[in-house]
């Protein structure tokens, strides 16, 4: 809002009230001027120092391999290890409340050993016996506790619907699938979380029907997204 200004001409008497008015008006109009009185989006990268605690995200990590084939044959989650291991070590990466950790994992399942194909029920879409899974795990740097987090990606090695049509469908094996697992881990607590490491693990669900799968050509990325 513009501030009104009195104008004087030669010979006018200078009255204190008039002299004060201009300054008083300015003071009144600037009363709302404070640290919030900056327009939206006034700040660009050039205004922000990256010294000390970096404002912009600089924390990227990635593991990849295209040569090694790993056989997953356990129903217990086992570390994906294509030499290098798909583990990103931090030794105490602090995730503050409100910060996000993004994890992405892609890999091929290039072969599978599938048994008992006549046990049709085990290959229905609602049965996990023919499936393999991937999940992220992390070790808490403070407590030492290792725990899984985020969703579990489940893939089926066969392709058969829940309801049998009139004709008998063959059980169709499905390998060569590019598998993906993603998670945006938001620290929604009031306390920071310290990561020692994060890794990808895999397992088969039932060795009686799916003794093993072979995985190859994978990538694994983790980065912290500042809020």
């Amino acid at each position, binding site marked *: 809002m513009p501030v009104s200004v009195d104008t004087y001409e030669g010979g006018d008497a200078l*009255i*204190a*009230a008039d*002299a*004060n008015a201009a*300054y*008083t008006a*300015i*003071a009144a109009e*600037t*009363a*709302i*001027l*404070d*640290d*919030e009185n*900056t327009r*939206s*989006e*006034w*700040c*660009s*990268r050039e205004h*922000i120092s990256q010294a000390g605690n970096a*404002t*912009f*995200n*600089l924390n*990227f990590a*990635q593991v*990849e*391999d*295209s*040569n090694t084939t790993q056989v997953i044959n356990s129903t217990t989650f086992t570390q994906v290890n294509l030499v290098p291991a798909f583990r990103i070590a931090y030794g105490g990466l602090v995730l503050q409340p409100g910060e*996000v950790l993004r994890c*992405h994992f*892609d890999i*091929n399942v*290039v*072969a*599978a050993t599938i048994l008992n194909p006549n046990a049709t029920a085990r290959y229905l879409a609602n049965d996990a016996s023919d499936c393999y899974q991937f999940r992220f795990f992390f070790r808490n740097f403070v407590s030492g506790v290792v725990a899984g987090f985020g969703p579990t990606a489940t893939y089926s*090695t066969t*392709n058969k619907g829940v309801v049998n049509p009139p004709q008998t469908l*063959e059980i*169709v*094996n*499905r*390998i*060569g*699938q*590019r598998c*993906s697992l*993603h998670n945006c881990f938001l620290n929604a607590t009031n306390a920071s979380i310290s990561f020692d490491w994060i890794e990808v693990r895999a397992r088969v669900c039932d060795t009686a029907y799916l003794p093993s799968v072979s995985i190859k*050509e994978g*990538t694994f*990325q983790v*980065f912290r*997204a*500042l*809020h």
Partner: protein
Amino acid sequence: MPFTVPVVFTAATAVSATSLQTNHTALRKYINHGIIKADILPVSVTTTDIVRGEYANVVRDHQFTTGDILTQFVEVDLFSQSYATSHFKAFDLFSLKTEAVPNMSKRVIMERDGTIFISAGMAAIGDLNYQLLNQKKASGVYLQISLNDRVIATDYIAATYGRAYTEDNVATDVDTSGNTTTHGIYSRRWYAQRYWRTFSKGDIVNIALVVDPRSDKMHVTARNLNLEVFYR
């Protein structure tokens, strides 16, 4: 910090030039430099203060969470298909040579040092074709990153290899898809890939999804490509 008047005049008191000048000087300093650094308190800069995407057609997600999104291409029309063939290979149909998928490439010139995070996905499908049975190989899908104006055949990233199988109506699993039925449609696989790489200011980065067709004819559909750039 609001402006504070140094001298307040009172009635029946002479207004001196010095007092008047004091007020003028204070006001001039306030307007010019009086809004000082300390007025912007620590941690007062919030996400809404910071400039968002600087490019046309930018999706305005916050750059700290997702990076500036330079390109987003999403094609969900299953009838919008792009075809590729292995016949561009000089000596055989199955050596590893790639060609770019239409609409799935982007050139980025880095304004500052930064990291590009790439997310891509598509359905790549080998169609029924006429080549010999022993040449019905699984086609490859790769992410390819080239620097500057030179694109070379080895720019594809081996760890991003995905497989696209043929839908030939044969019971022989020649392409190692696991499918030994005559239902070729069971050979469909979805390809999805994330990847990042760090670049320097001034780098000219060409990012593309490429296929290595190993069949007479293959097609690509349902494509999406998303680049997030995290400048430093």
